[in-house]
């Protein structure tokens, strides 16, 4: 009846010699863009070129948190739309993306942090996104496991509570979008490596892959952590991106104990309980640029030290798995979405750092609009590459970011 086992993203097909659109990278931004191109713009002759398998990179390595509590007026509406799209996509794709709308609790540990939170909250409220500043006691009511005593390294002053956020099953989004793409005729070519982009007179003409050359007029590179290197290698465009390892880990599964996503900037730590019961936790990147997904000994120890303090009951729980992924960080913590500027027919969607998952649905929609109409939608305009040339950073974080000595 409802469980017929047929391949979800089509049978393996031959790579054709030409496509209307070629998308390099088989992650969420690629799949979402292809999905919306095929669904809303009638462009179905699309090849997604993936070196490994779909969802190999950040799409399958992130900790699945979604939220719309960004800092600036350029970002909040985009993330709000992304957040609103989860239930819509679940229905459209007829695939349960398991949106756990549990709300995010962002802990604040100083007067300065409370001020920063207030600005973010006011920005959210101004844009119609629910977010509230609450005190430590209220936070404890939401998360009984929280340690709000003064006797920890960073005592909790309060928190930003953002009820519309939560957790989405990241793998399901990959598979659901792939299913939707395949249904609309998009071809997904796994284990196929993109090697080069051919151009003539400043226009895209082809993409060379490990399985042959494809003629095309439009290419999108949205290959997560690998984008910056690919774009430089293939087109010589230098991006202000530092690629850093970011690690995440899970504990053994438990019965429900944590009902919200809890995060703390001071502790560099977030934690949420997956539907399976594991406490998923992680936080900041390793402090140096690095193209590997290697784990480090100090990182898992740091997480344990942090959790020990603000969620002390977890001391009796065991970590069972840690993994690493790549975060492509820009100097202003905001992404680069651009196209038809450096090379006609070339589009890029990168620099998402660790925000790539939560944004993918809305970005796919607008990138599709951009590629189909060859005109940048207003929503994406502030994210162009030129802003760095003009020294106009986006202001997505209050503090200066420092990934490397050159920042």
């Amino acid at each position, binding site marked *: 009846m409802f469980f017929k086992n047929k391949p979800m*993203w089509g049978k393996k097909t031959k790579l054709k010699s030409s496509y209307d659109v070629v998308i390099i990278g088989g992650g969420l931004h690629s799949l979402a863009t292809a999905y919306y191109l095929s669904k809303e713009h009638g462009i179905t002759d699309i090849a997604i070129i993936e070196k490994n398998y779909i969802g190999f990179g950040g799409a399958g390595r992130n900790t699945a948190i979604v939220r719309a509590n960004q800092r600036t007026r350029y970002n909040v509406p985009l993330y709000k739309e992304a957040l609103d799209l989860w239930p819509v996509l679940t229905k459209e794709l007829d695939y349960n993306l398991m*949106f756990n709308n549990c709300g995010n609790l962002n802990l604040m540990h100083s007067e300065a942090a409370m001020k920063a939170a207030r600005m973010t909250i*006011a920005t959210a409220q101004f844009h119609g996104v629910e977010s509230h500043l609450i005190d430590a006691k209220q936070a404890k009511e939401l998360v009984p496991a929280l340690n709000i005593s003064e006797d920890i390294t960073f005592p909790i002053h309060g928190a930003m509570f953002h009820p519309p956020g939560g957790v989405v*099953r990241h793998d399901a989004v990959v598979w659901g979008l792939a299913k939707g793409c395949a249904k609309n005729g998009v071809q997904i070519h796994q284990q196929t490596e993109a090697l080069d982009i051919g151009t003539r007179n400043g226009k895209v003409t082809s993409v060379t892959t490990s399985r042959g050359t494809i003629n095309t007029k439009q290419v999108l590179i949205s290959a997560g952590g690998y984008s910056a290197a690919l774009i430089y290698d293939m087109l010589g465009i230098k991006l202000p991106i530092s690629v850093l390892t970011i690690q995440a880990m899970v504990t053994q599964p438990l019965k429900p104990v944590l009902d919200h996503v809890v995060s703390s900037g001071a502790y560099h730590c977030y934690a949420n309980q997956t*539907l399976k019961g594991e406490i998923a936790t992680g936080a900041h990147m390793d402090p140096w640029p690095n193209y590997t997904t290697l784990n480090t000994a100090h990182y898992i120890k740091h997480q344990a030290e942090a959790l020990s303090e603000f969620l002390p009951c977890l001391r009796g729980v065991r970590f069972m798995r840690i993994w690493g992924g790549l975060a492509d960080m820009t100097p202003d913590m905001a992404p680069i979405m651009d196209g038809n500027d450096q090379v006609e027919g070339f589009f890029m969607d990168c620099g998402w750092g660790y925000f790539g998952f939560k944004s993918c649905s809305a970005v796919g929609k607008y990138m599709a609009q951009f590629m189909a109409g060859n005109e940048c939608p207003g929503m994406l305009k502030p994210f162009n590459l030129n802003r760095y040339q003009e020294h*106009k950073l986006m202001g997505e974080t209050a503090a200066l970011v420092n990934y490397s000595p050159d920042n």
Partner: protein
Amino acid sequence: MNRLSQLPTLKIDTTQKLAFTYKEKTYFGAKGDTIASALFANGVRIFGRSLKYHRPRGLYSLDGECSNTCMEVDGVPNVRCENTSLEDGMIIKEQNVKGSAEYDMMGFLDKMDWAMPAGFYYNVMHKPAKIWPLAMKQIRKAAGLGKIAPDHEIPGKYDEIFLNTDVCVIGGGPAGMTAALAAAQKGLRVILMESRPWLGGCFEYRSREYQSRQTLHDRAVQLAKEVEKTENIRLFTHTSAVGTYNNNLVTGFQIGKKEDIFDQRYVEIRANSVISAAGAIERPLLFDNNERPGVMQAACALRLAKTYGQLPGKKAVFSVGHDFGLEAAIELHDLGLAIACVTDIREDGQNLELVKKIRNRKIPLLKGWVATKAHGMKTVKKISISTLDGQISKTFACDVIVASAGFTPVTGHITVNQGTLKYDSHTGAFLPDQMPEKMHAAGRVLGLEDPKSIEVSGKLAGLKAAFDCENCSIQELGDAKKELEALPGPARGSKLVTAPVKGRKTFICFDEDATIKNIKQAIEKGFDVPELIKRFTATGLGPGQGGIPGHNLPLFVAKYQALPDISIRPTNVRPPLVPTLIATYAGANHKMFKTTPMDEMQRKDGGIFRNIGVWQRARYFSNDFSSRKEIENVRNNVGMLDASTLGKFRIHGPDALKALQRVFVSDMSRVKQGRVKYSAMCNDDGCVIDDGVVIKQGENDYYFTTSTGRAGQTIEWIRYHTRYDGWDFALVNLTDSMGVINLSGPNARKVMEKVVDIDISNEGFGFAEYKTFNIADTIPVRAMRLGFVGELSYELHVPASYMKAVWIMLKDAGKEFNIRNFGVEAQNVLRMEKCHIILGQESEQRTNLLDVGLGFLWDRSKADAKTVGAVALRQAENDQTRFKLVGFKMENNGRAPRDGALVVDDKVRGYIATARDSFSLNEAVGMALVEAPLSKIGTRLEIFEDECGDDRIYGKVVAMPFYDPEGNRMKM
């Protein structure tokens, strides 16, 4: 139950009884028992229920490979009872049951598997959307194994230790011990880690002959004695190695003994060379109900008897694929276990001596046969076996099934450190291919089974490690290699992946209840790579990780898709290789904050401290967080602030000035001796990253301050931005060696006069001047007249060791004026009234020098400077779209908006940086960053606060500063 006694291998002492509580009743175990072996001795066969189908689960391995025996012990969930030592008074509870493990009301789910194929949850419960939140609640309740209370506090002491060694050996079996001895004999410092409480590995519990008149057990004891008496081997038993990292960093955790001061200890070892001798685990045999209580691995059955003195049951059937299985059958038979039949997957190739021994004991031996199904509702009652093609079958009544398809070398320590494995079709196992640098494998990790080969491979690895440490010759290495080559290599392994079954109840992963059928479903859906199948079916993602399915999954996937051997790749193994308590990882949980020399004295004076960056600072001196008294005292009298956290640096040398010119925006050649110069640093985007004062102490010799937050990065910053110039200068970070006292207020001079001998009249020591002198002929002081808070003020830079003395002198001198401390918040308000900015408060990531009104600091005519940020500043000069810092007052005497409130019209146009109801001015004032068009004096600012709804408050842009605009007070 009576335990077997008189066995030399026993690790229990039945004369010492330990009481424990299980299901609210008291039971007894023997000293040396694990929790599981004690429960087993008391007749417990079902330890818990499985995650999805609530199937009964029992003792399967004794090394914690799956979650079958995970229980709640003293409130701590998911404790692996099979390798956790029993302690007196433990309280043990079952997990994931409704009712009891024996009678679980959710047991019916086992029949519902048709409704729960692989990934079924992605296809259901989302239509209509309304039902999902309700369904999700139920899923959450059903999922998860153990329970933890939100207020649970794990008892015990957790410690940490960081070690350095020449050679670290992982695994205290025969290979590990031989390796450790070989390296130690070369004079190296060796650390040996063994996860069991004792040494001996796979020799320890076996009576098979090692050499004439010596059993494997005897040999293990002999080796262990040698290891224990070798002084340069540091032994860590009951210590699991859970991670290996770059440059041979090994982490693990140690379980403390009674006499230790810790219960568990995080162990981190930096080794020059690492030897992986972690042995092998058994590859589960896949047949129907292959995890029914009563089914267990061969080593589990044997060790249950030989280590813990209990037979696994009354009557057993063996279904194995290796000689060790035959050996176990013989030993268990001789200990009194009835064996109905031994089936061997291999049609030939058995050790003839073992076959003979089995025949001598009249045990039926069927070659080329395999178990196909375990019968029995809750525990094993009967078994079906068949020929490999499934054509002929038989059944036997039994209560134990010893099942084991082959061996899986424990290679996690190699692969998490980036070593690679290769499928070896001779053994059917993944064997090390590329080893990480300075890491060597030994023993069963290499697929070896012959006892002598295992030992010699250990010796070779030990010598290789010694070679890494330059303590061994190539000649010796060659000899050991030859010695190993002369001995038997890895045994041929059985290739069977599954018995001839459909697989609906054949469990490839116990922890996640994933069956062979689920794997087939996933493959049919297009998940063709083991890593993807893992994600889709959760196989190997449970509490035991890849222990049970790690080897079988890639084999099965290849077989099902008829892929050639060469394409078989192992799935990823990830640290921690043994699940590790967060408490253990946290260890001692240090708090590391820097404190100033005045820390103690300020606390005595009632300071309320906050962590600010890496420092602890006194933010308030009363519970009135408006700091009114502190503020008024500075304005009207005199106060003192501890500003020791400021970054303080000396830069000197022939090119010191060039370096300053590079990073500071001002022309630093104009810094005059005896004067204080305020300036700022920008980054390449022109954004202000730091500000502070610079003093010329002598020719080519400067002293400068930075903000507290930047102190840690300053040296790196200057070096980085001068890296191509080859300039000759030296930088010294004096932040921690110098303390700073800020003495401010109209009475500051009167206080100073009583302490110092120099002329400090306004003529003798004017505003923005700098002096050095000694207090009491002893204490060297650098004094500056600054005006950050807007009053007459002296900033005294004093060596940290003299800070207390100077602080007390000033305090004593100030007594008659009622001098008081003021904290960081008071300073914040005082300087805000004066519109002096604090970076990070009146600036953010995108704020440049011009935006905050500090453009006057920037000298455009600096000749050879190439000032960092100058290019961007030039570009930004005419940009009208940037934020500008403005001062504002509230309309109609309204209250101050909260920091972080927005300035809006129909869009966000800026935000409030700092605003307060000013006691000095009797009105609400503040500073805001707003878009340039809103920055004109007189502009009305519409202010949107959090939770304001439709209400707005309004302010008006006014000239800065608010307080004492002429600056008379600080210059008095």
